[in-house]
């Protein structure tokens, strides 16, 4: 510890000056300049990819109109009869098991005691807690409002499951067997490969249909081939899908003309799924 030599002849006053920089001063100086440099680097955005990433993330989150399209779903709870067709069609199309459904139906009641059915896909929030917490960016926002998964990046930490306020995310707890899917072929055919063990998955708004449809010149929400399976199959037309950025789209007109609600708006997640409330629920 005591490394510096002290010559006995030196006067006390001189001795104080022998060390130009004490360790404490040096450390303080180093930390001070380090912090200053770090802040300067952080604030000068052209230099810093991190800041740029932050700004980009911010802009995609804020912009509803960032992309050309913003896909939304409208679910009419006053029409829903709770038949589970959308649940089964989703299971067949996205090849999920009964305990890993991407789209679920539950029963609830209004404060006047009227029972109603509510189905819940992923809500594709503009401020999605799952996206914010994912340590590797395996789940992210697309410009068209979709919250999607990169199964190749996911490390399976399940923080997104913990953070999602709606419980939409399911984890592949074990290797998927080659067993046939009981919903096939009555409710549709699998259109996406089964996911590997150890990653999280969730509803994609049938992203494969949307993307392929657009390249074919089809419009999601209008052409069934480009529309999510759950929307197509609904026997009472309780589900609508489309581009909220297009004022003439089906969904934009419904949202403009009908009172709708979104789930847990108090959390500020800004979901892309709008519900038309049942009778007796404002």
């Amino acid at each position, binding site marked *: 510890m005591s490394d510096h030599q002290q010559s006995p002849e030196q006067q006390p006053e001189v001795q104080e000056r022998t060390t130009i920089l004490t360790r404490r001063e040096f450390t303080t100086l180093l930390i001070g300049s380090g912090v200053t440099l770090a802040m300067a680097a952080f604030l000068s955005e052209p230099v810093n990819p991190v800041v740029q990433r932050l700004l980009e993330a911010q802009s995609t989150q804020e912009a509803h109109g960032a992309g050309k399209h913003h896909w939304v779903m409208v679910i009419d709870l006053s029409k829903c009869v709770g038949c589970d067709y959308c649940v089964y069609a989703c299971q067949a199309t996205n090849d999920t098991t009964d305990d890993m459904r991407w789209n679920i139906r539950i029963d609830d009641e209004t404060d006047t005691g009227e029972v109603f059915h*509510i189905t819940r896909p992923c809500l594709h929030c503009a401020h999605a807690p799952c996206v914010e*917490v994912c340590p590797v960016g395996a789940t992210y926002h697309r410009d068209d409002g979709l919250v999607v998964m990169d199964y190749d*990046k*996911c490390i399976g930490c399940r923080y997104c499951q913990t953070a999602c306020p709606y419980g939409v*995310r399911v984890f*592949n707890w074990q*290797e998927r067997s080659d067993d046939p899917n009981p919903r096939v072929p009555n409710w549709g055919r699998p259109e996406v490969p089964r996911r590997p063990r150890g990653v999280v998955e969730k509803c994609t708004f049938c992203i494969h249909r949307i993307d392929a449809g657009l390249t074919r010149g089809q419009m999601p929400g209008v052409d069934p081939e480009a529309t999510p399976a759950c929307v197509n199959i609904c026997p009472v037309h309780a589900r609508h899908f489309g581009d909220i950025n297009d004022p003439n789209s089906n969904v934009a007109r419904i949202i403009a003309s009908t009172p709708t609600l979104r789930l847990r708006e108090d959390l500020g997640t800004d979901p892309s799924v709008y519900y038309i409330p049942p009778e007796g629920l404002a």
Partner: protein
Amino acid sequence: MTARQLTDNRRLPLFLIWILLLVAGLGIGTVSGIHVLLNGLGVTNLSNQSPWGLWIVVDLSSIALGAGAFTLSAAVYLFGLKRFEAIARAAVFVGLLGYSSAMIALAMDIGRPDRFYHPLIYWNVHSVLWEITMCVVLYSTVLVLELVPIIIESTPLKKNRFLHSLGHNLHRIMPLVAVAGMGLSLLHQSSLGATYGILTARPVWYSPSAPVLFILSAVAGGPALTLFLTLLAGLVLRKEMIPRDVVAGVAKLIGFACLAYLYLKLWSWASQNYYSRLPERELGIQLLNLNTPYGFTFWWGEVLLGAIVPAIIMLWPRLRNNRAILMLGTLLVIAGLVIYRWNMTLSGFTVPLNWSPGVREIAAINTYSPALVEWGVAIGIVSYGWLAYTLGVRFLKLYPEARALRRDAAEVPPSEQPQPQPAGTD
């Protein structure tokens, strides 16, 4: 037969039994771990409703209990408490054991252990978990840097000139390493609390005080574990591992940390449950109290036995000068910390999410209790920690100021001086 041989003969089987016990624990852990790796996390009791469980508790606890490293290093190198150097090395070693235990637990817990390095290359700077991963990786490097001089000094490596000067130079930059260590520790220890504290959808968790509570409990619990292990080693080896005034100093530090933790804990509780009310949180706490021992373990485990009693023990000289009571006090701090991590992790998942606009409770309360295989892995991790510490005390110079107790010396005939050295520290 000399007295020395007698004591050695009596001690050796005990040591052997202890090591065999730990190796058995390690075996249980290995078998359980392989079972999980082969068959997936489906073999655990985790579910989509309770995706985190015992292993996360092990992970959080071992990182918090490793906090003695940064606390005591900071005391030595930043706050000029040079006498704490007598325990700082052991703290660094225990810290590294804590962090490596956490990494093992995490590797078991993630669905794709083969992608453990992904956070390092795919950055999501907005994620607290990303920040934690980066800090833990960097801080483990700091711990290794702090440990290298000790290893060089304790082994024949010191005869190598290059390594010797490397160790010496590393020792010289320790203040800088300690600054880096403290910064990184403050960041990730608090972010571990933020992992829960930032989740708006879980009213039982959502709280700005969670990060600070995590760090304060770690500042109490980390040194508590190091002090407990040090006293235990002294008891077994019949040595005074660190000077008495250092024992008292560390105890006081733990005591003040307990008080700070207690202050924020009570204030945090009062502000959220007494002075204000949020219907959702109120309902959540009600559900927890009806279905789990949450309230009981909170007040008795976390507050009374985990903070109040140890604070009294650590700050009352008459109590802390009694080794048995002091050891009990450190154990209480450790237990309180683990109970806090357990309660924190499980409570948020137990209360079901309610996103439906109707008035019904849409989901039942979630129950989780660890599966046998989860306990197996946990036993393996704990055994690893104990085994590594036991071997560390035996083969590394963790306690530079350790000296034999005079009482022990009196038992040995004069011809047998110097003292028998059961720990092969030379």
